[in-house]
Structure formats: C-alpha cells, structure tokens
C-alpha cells in the first residue's frame, strides 16, 4: 500500500510539473508583452526598472526557472496590475469565499440529487422517474447566466424577497446557492439513476431477493453502496468545480470569490494572476484526483487488494 501511495504521489508531482510548465510557456507565448500598454507612457528608465522588477527583461527560460523556484517556496509572484498585491494572498483570501458558497451548494445539491436519482431508479418508467428526468435535463440545459437573470428578476426585483447581489450577510448566500444547486442536482440525479439501474440488474441483487430481503433492505444494503461508488468520481470533480464552475455566478452576484478575480484578471490581462490561479486550479484538481483514488480504495475492497500488491 505504501509503495502504491509513493508511486501515486510521484506521478502526481510529475503531472503537476508538466501542467505548470505548459501553462507558463503558453502564457508567455502570448504576442506582445503584458506590460506593454501600461509601460508605453513611461520614460525609458522607469520602464526598464519596471521590467526588471517583474523579471521580464530576462530570457523566457530564465524567467521560467525563476518562476519554478519561487513556486517551490509557494510564492506565486505578485499581480501585474495591482502593485503590491500578491497572487498567493489573493487566492488565499478569495478561495475560501468560493469554497463556502460552492461547498454549501455542493452538499445540498448532492444530497438532493442523489435522493432524486434513487427515487427515479426505483420508480423506473413511472411518473416520479419521468418528472425527475425532465427536471434534470432542464437543469442542465438552461445556461447559468440565464437562470441567474431569471432568479434575480423574480426573487429580487418582482418579489423583493432576496437581495439581487452582494456579499457579507447570510442572506446573500441564498440565491447563489440555489442557482449552483440546480446544476448539481441535475447531474447527480441523472448519474445516480443510471448507475442504480445498472446495479439493480446485477445477479447479486437477485441473490439478495432470493434470500428473502425486503426491497428496502436490498436497496440500502446491496444496491446503494455499489451504485454510489461511481458517483464518487463526479463528486471529486465537482469539488474542484466549487471553484472553477462559479465564474459566472460569482460575477453576477458580486461575490468576491476566486472565480470573480479570475475573470477580472483575464479581462485586465493580469498574467501573473491568471497563471497563479491556473496553477492553483491544476494543483487542486490533481490532488483531488489522488484523493479520489484513495477514497476508491477505501470503499471498494477489490481495488484495495489490487493496490496493495
């Protein structure tokens, strides 16, 4: 097992290295330099000092080595647009906000989605199944920004129940969480339904039935565990989605989360910020994938053994 984990961690580090390098060279391949528009007006000397400060006067490869060195010390550099604002600090202060909104939405969404999926599978072909399927498909087909517009119009403008945007009070959480839930519910209910139907078809379910177990016990003891296992996969990617998927939601509700800053920095061509955030996302994603593998080995005894060998 230990050997397996070491191997996984090494593979993970390699992947991270490749991803970071790729991103670095991609960002640096952008034609024109990021300071150009800003530095144009400056006198020659100041401009040089400016370039030197960000290391932009050195050859790309040297910059790369420098960036990697800093990265090892967890230093992501500082913003190109806002002097003195460090990328790492920005991430550290904005990511928890995204995590809070996304986390609540993910928990509620997963719980509701899984329940609906189970309900749909157990009533396959009957009306609860039909209704849930239609809701699920609708949930995934309406673009988020349309949904948000509709919500804001209804709950804030027409009814006046909720503030249309803003941050600071718990009530500001309600609408973003609702919006983010819908997609999660839709995804999970579809996924769980399919996986559950597949499990219900397995021979061991028949064995359980022949044993005299009630349908309820068959589902709780034999079907759920085996059909929720694949759902763990999407749970992990949606954990990353807490941060990435919320670009639009955060912007439209003016939530000062990391997604909001990511969009801002893209629009302002703040490359160190873009770069830093991307690296953050990639790390998160890769680490989560490893977590997923480990969770998998914990819940599936078949993998547990294979991994130990």
């Amino acid at each position, binding site marked *: 097992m230990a050997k397996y984990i070491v191997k996984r961690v090494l593979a993970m580090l390699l992947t991270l290295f490749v991803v970071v390098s790729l991103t670095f060279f991609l960002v640096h391949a952008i034609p024109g330099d990021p300071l150009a528009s800003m530095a144009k007006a400056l006198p020659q000397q100041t401009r040089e000092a400016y370039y030197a400060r960000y290391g932009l006067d050195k050859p790309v490869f040297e910059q790369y080595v420098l960036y990697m060195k800093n990265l090892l010390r967890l230093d992501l550099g500082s913003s190109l647009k806002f002097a003195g604002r460090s990328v790492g600090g920005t991430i550290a202060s904005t990511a928890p906000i995204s995590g809070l909104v996304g986390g609540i939405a993910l928990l509620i969404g997963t719980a509701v989605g899984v329940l609906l999926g189970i309900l749909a599978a157990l009533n396959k072909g009957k009306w609860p199944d039909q209704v849930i399927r239609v809701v699920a498909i609708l949930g995934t087909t309406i673009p988020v920004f349309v949904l948000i517009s509709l919500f804001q119009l209804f709950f804030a403008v027409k009814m006046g129940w909720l503030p249309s945007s803003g941050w600071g009070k718990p009530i500001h959480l309600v609408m973003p969480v609702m919006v983010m839930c819908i997609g999660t519910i839709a995804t999970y209910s579809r996924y769980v339904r399919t996986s559950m139907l597949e499990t219900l078809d397995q021979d061991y379910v028949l*064995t359980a039935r022949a044993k005299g177990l009630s349908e309820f016990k068959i589902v709780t003891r034999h079907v759920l565990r085996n059909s929720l296992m694949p759902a763990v996969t999407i749970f992990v990617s949606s954990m990353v989605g807490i941060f990435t998927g919320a670009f639009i939601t955060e912007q439209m509700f003016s939530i000062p989360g990391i997604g909001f800053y990511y969009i801002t920095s893209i629009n302002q061509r703040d490359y160190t910020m873009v770069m830093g955030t991307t690296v953050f996302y990639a790390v998160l994603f890769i680490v989560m994938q490893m977590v997923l593998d480990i969770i998998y080995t914990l819940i599936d005894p*078949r993998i547990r053994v294979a991994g130990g060998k």
Partner: protein
Amino acid sequence: MDRILNVENLQVSFHTYAGEVRAVRGVSFELGRGETLAFVGESGCGKTATAKAIMRLWKPPFVEIKSDSVVEYNGEDVMKMDKKRLQSLRGNDISMIFQDPMTSLNPTMTVGKQIMEGLQLHRGLNKAQAREEAINMLRMVKIPVPEKNVDSYPHQLSGGMRQRVMIAMALACQPSILIADEPTTALDVTIQAQVLDLLQELKTQLNTAIILVTHDLGVIANFADRVQVMYAGQVVERGTTKEIFNEAKHPYTWALLNSVPALATENKQELYALKGTPPDLILPLNHCPFAARCEYCMGICREQMPEETTLSGTHKVSCWLEHPNAPKVESFYDRRKK
C-alpha cells in the same frame, strides 16, 4: 411420499418488443420432502424460468406469471402470498443458488455478512450469534479456515469456494427446498464433482429437497431421484433417473442421452449432435415443438400436440410415438446395442 411442492399448469411469459414470448407453457410437477428432482434441457427451454417462478423472483411487468398457474408450498398458494409472507418464504423455506458464483455475490460485502443477513432476518439471531452460525455454515461447506474466511470478500475466493459460499448462504436457514440453477456450469470439471458431492452430502444431512436445473445429463446420473426433460417450455418426458437413463421413450431424451460422451461412446459410436435450434418461443406452437428436429417426425406431429402418456406410475412421456397407431421405431438403446 410427503409432498412439499406442487406446481400445476405454470405459465411464464416475457413481454418483449417483438411480442409475447411464452417461455414456460403449462408445466406441472410435484416434489416430495427430501427428494431431488432435476430439470434437464437445452438453454432457453424454460428450466430457469420455471425455477425462478416458483419463488416468484420474476418482476412484473416485463415478465408475467399467468394467473391460472398454481404453485403450492406445503399446501400454501405461493402465487397468492403477500409481500411479507413471500419474503419469509424466500431464503427460509425455499432458497436458490445461481449459475455464476462470480456475479451472484455482492463484491463489496464480506461473505460472512452475506450469510449472516439471512440468519438475522429469518431466525432472529443477533450479530454475534449469526456470525457464529455463518462460521459453522462455512465449515459445513468445507471452506478452509472459516474463522478467517468469514471476513473475506468474494474476489478473494476461487470460483469453487464462492459457489460453496453460495451454498452455505442458501442452506443457512435450513430451507425445505433448495433450487440449484446450473450450480456447476461455471466451474472446472474437478470442482464440479466436489460441489455436487457436497450438495449430495448436505442434502442427506439436512433432508432438503433439491430442484437441480441443468443442461447436462451427466451431472444428474448419481444425483437426482427423478428427472423431467423440458423442451420449448414444456415437460416432454419425466420419470425416475433410472427410467430416464434406461427406458427413455422420447426422441428428444434420446438425443440428450446420445450427447453424453460416457453413454454414447461405449460402442465407439460417434457423438450425436442434434440438428437445428429449438423453436422460437414467440410462436404459438400448437403441435409437438420437437417435430422440426425429430428424426421420427410423423404427419401428426406437425398438426397436434401429443398428450402425456403414462408408462408407469412415475414415467410419463408426451410423444405421438406412444400412440397405438404409431410404428415401432428403433430406440436409442437398440441402436447402441448394435
């Protein structure tokens, strides 16, 4: 003989896109306490469908057990049982083991827990008692180191061991009837013999009646008391094992006997392969279903269904050759003697 199961006119249909497939077409039989009855026939002849229908394991609406079918367990009508009674019947009075031990066990639950489930449910044991009993059952089916293997997951055991676990699970509550659906088909030949020996031993020990579903006549020779040969959802011949092996009258039974190497090659005769395939059960079939593949097919065979003729108290056959007007034909046994 103390009758424990009575099945009359059992009919099972599958509703498919193409139409209604009548998989079981009026099967009737009885089973005595402690008796072993074998269902023999090619795949798709309705053996498994019959077996599953006894426990009402089919789920509507795609599979329908026709309403005039009768299944009586100990005089009690299984078809009319409510959910609760049906659940207490399954596993406790009648239990079943399936063909493929690889897929019939839940991969994410230890075998011990899977055995314990039935014990806790039907016999009201607590966890510790059930575990103790599960270990005893594993010992009984000759799993090595049962105290340790009770915590094994199915994938850690070999195919033969898994089938033993299935048997332990099925017999845990000492049911009166065990339905074994092709219990050895998925196993190696040597393991097959072991599993059958074990079943035989447990059967006498626990006085369990067994319904053995198989396509292999070789398997039942030393195992079954009675045999019923099924074809296209019907019983075409039935009798004691001795009668079926030594005095069979139905050409289909002959064909089956001929395909058992040990019986067929005594005289260096070539193995006989039955031509063609069984009829599609979507057809109404109001004549002998075997007619198209029968060497001795007569005009009448293609027009009318033969009635069941009683040859002795136990031996019955449904074939037009038994009609007084039918010609005498050379049987499987006559040919073998040559």
